[in-house]
């Protein structure tokens, strides 16, 4: 039974890592534990930590904490885990079946680096057009987006810090935009930077933060809000750094 509870907690943990909201994870864990025969389940989750206490029908209690350090949005994994937790609640599954499905979800198919690389570039190019840039600006933005992605990819392996990553990305994007202006391909850096900012800014983080706050998960909401604010500041810092050092007129 304890092994089954362990699975319930692990499924919840992986859901949280792949981008589920806090109250959804709390609900899923509670439901799964109930399906496994828990008399009572107390779950408390914030974005970086989980505490789960399970009371078995014969009076034993079982508590576990998990520290959730990094998160990377992966909706395919979330979909598979969500499916698994639904199935567990609907019918009794054997331990082996659960393990198999769980591993399947963890090792789900991911897009190749090349495809991610191209889509990063496409996002930058598309949003340059979106905010009113012309075709030259969009083309430059496309290449800048690609270089930014490469930069994050290689430095992210060393730093492991989201905030530093965004700072670096903003620095690269701004310097390349200024260089393009200096060469004379474009007249203003605005559109290039806006296009590249779109994939960096914590718009999703901010929306999730406000949603968490409104649904009553105040601590998670505040944590996400602070994270979003720090990311926005680090983007601005990257931009300021280049603009000051370069001494270009804006």
């Amino acid at each position, binding site marked *: 039974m304890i092994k089954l509870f362990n699975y319930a907690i692990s499924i919840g943990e992986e859901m949280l890592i792949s*981008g*589920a*909201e806090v109250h*959804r994870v709390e609900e899923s864990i509670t439901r799964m534990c109930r399906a496994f025969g828990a008399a009572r389940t107390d779950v408390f989750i914030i974005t970086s930590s989980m505490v789960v206490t399970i009371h078995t029908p014969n009076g034993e209690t079982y508590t576990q904490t998990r520290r959730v350090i990094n998160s990377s*949005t*992966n*909706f*395919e*994994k*979330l*979909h598979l885990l*969500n*499916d698994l937790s*639904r199935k567990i609640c609907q019918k009794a599954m054997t331990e082996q079946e659960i393990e198999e499905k769980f591993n399947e979800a963890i090792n*789900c*198919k*991911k*897009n190749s680096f090349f*495809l*991610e690389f191209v*889509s*990063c570039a*496409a*996002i930058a190019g*598309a*949003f340059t*057009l*979106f*905010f*009113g840039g012309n075709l030259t600006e969009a083309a430059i933005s496309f290449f800048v987006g690609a270089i930014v992605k490469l930069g994050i990819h290689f430095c992210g392996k060393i730093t492991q810090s989201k905030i530093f990553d965004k700072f670096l990305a903003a620095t690269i994007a701004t310097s390349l935009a200024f260089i393009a202006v200096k060469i004379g391909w474009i007249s203003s850096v*605005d559109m290039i*930077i*806006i296009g590249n*900012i*779109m*994939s960096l*800014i914590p*718009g*999703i983080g*901010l*929306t*999730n933060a*406000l*949603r968490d706050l*409104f*649904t009553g998960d105040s601590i998670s909401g505040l944590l996400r809000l602070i994270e979003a604010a720090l990311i*926005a500041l680090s*983007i*601005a810092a990257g*931009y*300021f750094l280049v*603009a000051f050092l370069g001494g270009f007129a*804006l």
Partner: protein
Amino acid sequence: MTTAEIIQILSGFVGSMGFAVLFNIRGKRFVAVSIGGLISWLLFVILSKFISNEPTNYFIVACALSAYSEIMAILLKSPTTTFITTALVPLIPGGSLYYTMAYAFQGNMTTFLQKGIYTLQLAAALALGIIVSSTITRIIHKIIKQKTGLL
């Protein structure tokens, strides 16, 4: 509809697709999310013909798109977050955030504050729209459960 608006709608669509790839959304959900990205800005452009206040438009579009996301979540049996976060990408106020930053750099306090508050207004309108829609969905869920006696 002007050419600029059509370009905006199409590039918002491409942007949403790009984010769907980054977030590893596959199969039918990828199609649903991309269409969501397309209609979010289409709706915004149509609404802006009638309502000139941008935050209000953001709020309405966010409401509509979260309703779309909730429906897709039920049809495709996947968490709502998947659809909302990706379909609403064209509405992220990246442009106005950038100008906030640029004005701060120029030391232009008045315009900086104006733009900054405006950016916050847009973000708040977006979040509020999502919350209103998801709250209504939750109430409907509860009513259906009570009526069918599943509770």
